[in-house]
């Protein structure tokens, strides 16, 4: 039941054409080492699901810069001009999703729901090609669940079982992404023997592999 993995195990899980969720909000809470390893692997045609496009040299922006991303699903790309440029050139498809909708779509997949009804996006271009459903005289958009092949998350601390807690605003999308992918890898800053059972944010059952900061990965 040892969840502590090394770089080779991580690299073996990467494939061309995968969908990968990456935690973080403008790269705060993004597992940069995993991003660097993906750059090194040079896998192609990825679909990346992340709150935003990061920066050109930080977060998922590094994968865009290295031309590994075919499609990006995000709520915001404003801090990475490279993403906008590649989109204009037709080299990158970007699907912009309201941030709260993205969060609920990911949570829905992890929780076995087919989707959720949100008022967000009604009478905007977000509603295009989506089903509208009226509940108690209010219109909602049906937004379907969103899963991925891999989720890459960052946490502050893991215990020996793989239970996780996060650090301040580096929490963001990490806990929900941990529930919504076929395989979930966590990059953690610290490992302790035990965590208080009341404060665990991500139960160990969601985590398939853990890489600890400053362990020897080569």
């Amino acid at each position: 039941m040892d969840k502590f993995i090394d770089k080779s195990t991580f690299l073996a899980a990467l494939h061309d054409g995968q969908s990968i969720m990456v935690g973080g909000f403008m790269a705060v809470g993004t597992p940069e080492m995993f991003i660097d390893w993906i750059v090194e692997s040079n896998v192609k045609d990825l679909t990346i699901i992340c709150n935003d496009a990061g920066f050109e040299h930080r977060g998922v922006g590094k994968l865009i810069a290295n031309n590994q991303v075919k499609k990006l699903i995000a709520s915001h790309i404003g801090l990475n001009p490279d993403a906008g440029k590649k989109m204009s050139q037709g080299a990158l498809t970007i699907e912009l999703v309201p941030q709260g909708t993205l969060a609920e779509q990911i949570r829905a997949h992890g929780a076995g729901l087919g989707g959720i009804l949100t008022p967000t996006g009604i009478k905007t271009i977000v509603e295009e090609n989506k089903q509208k459903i009226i509940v108690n005289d209010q219109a909602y958009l049906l937004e379907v669940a969103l899963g991925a092949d891999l989720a890459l998350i960052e946490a502050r601390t893991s215990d020996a079982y793989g239970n996780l807690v996060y650090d301040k605003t580096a929490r963001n999308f990490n806990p929900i992404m941990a529930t919504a992918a076929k395989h979930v890898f966590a990059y953690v800053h610290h490992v302790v023997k035990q965590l208080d059972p009341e404060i665990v944010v991500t139960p160990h059952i969601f985590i398939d592999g853990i890489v600890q900061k400053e362990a020897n990965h080569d």
Partner: protein
Amino acid sequence: MINPKAIIAARVAKELSDGDLVNLGIGLPTLVANYIPETMNVFLQSENGLIGLGPTPTDAQIDKNLTNAGAQYVTLKDGGMFFDSATSFGIIRGGHVDVTVLGALEVDQEGSLASWIIPGKLVPGMGGAMDLVVGAKKVIVATTHTNKGKPKIKKRCELPLTAYQEVDMIVTEMAVIEVRSDGLHLMERHPDVSIETIIEQTDAALIIGDVKIMEV
């Protein structure tokens, strides 16, 4: 009118009440925090996952994992706490935010807002703005009255919308405008700006009643 942004931020701050949960958008709205009286308990939420946003940290206080939704370093006040993005937007969409303040590319006389895309030119994305405008109890647009002379308060937004008919109030350096079911009511004007000037700089029709002078 030396600093339009300061005028706007100070006026928006007067809309906040003790105990309010408030989300301040990136840019101009962030300045509102500087004008909240210290005696008033206003709780600032940031959609990346906290309530209890405090003042900008000193260099020594900077924590790279403690930022606001604009990726700026912030601090956390006593009583503040952290949560994930689903919880954060549950708070926002669920009507638990009392006031959201955000900027505009265009806002119109039906209370619709455009703020996230200029097709073919600028595509930053909507981020959390669509959820905030739909979910918050009161939506205040804080914006300069015009974009270099071009009216931003329009009869009808031409850019893609952030949300349809959700704006409650527009605060500019010239005027305070309330959005009601019958249209835009000019409530206050800057002491140095005439009603005529405001009408001239506004594309939308304004309903003029008892117009007060903005406290600046």
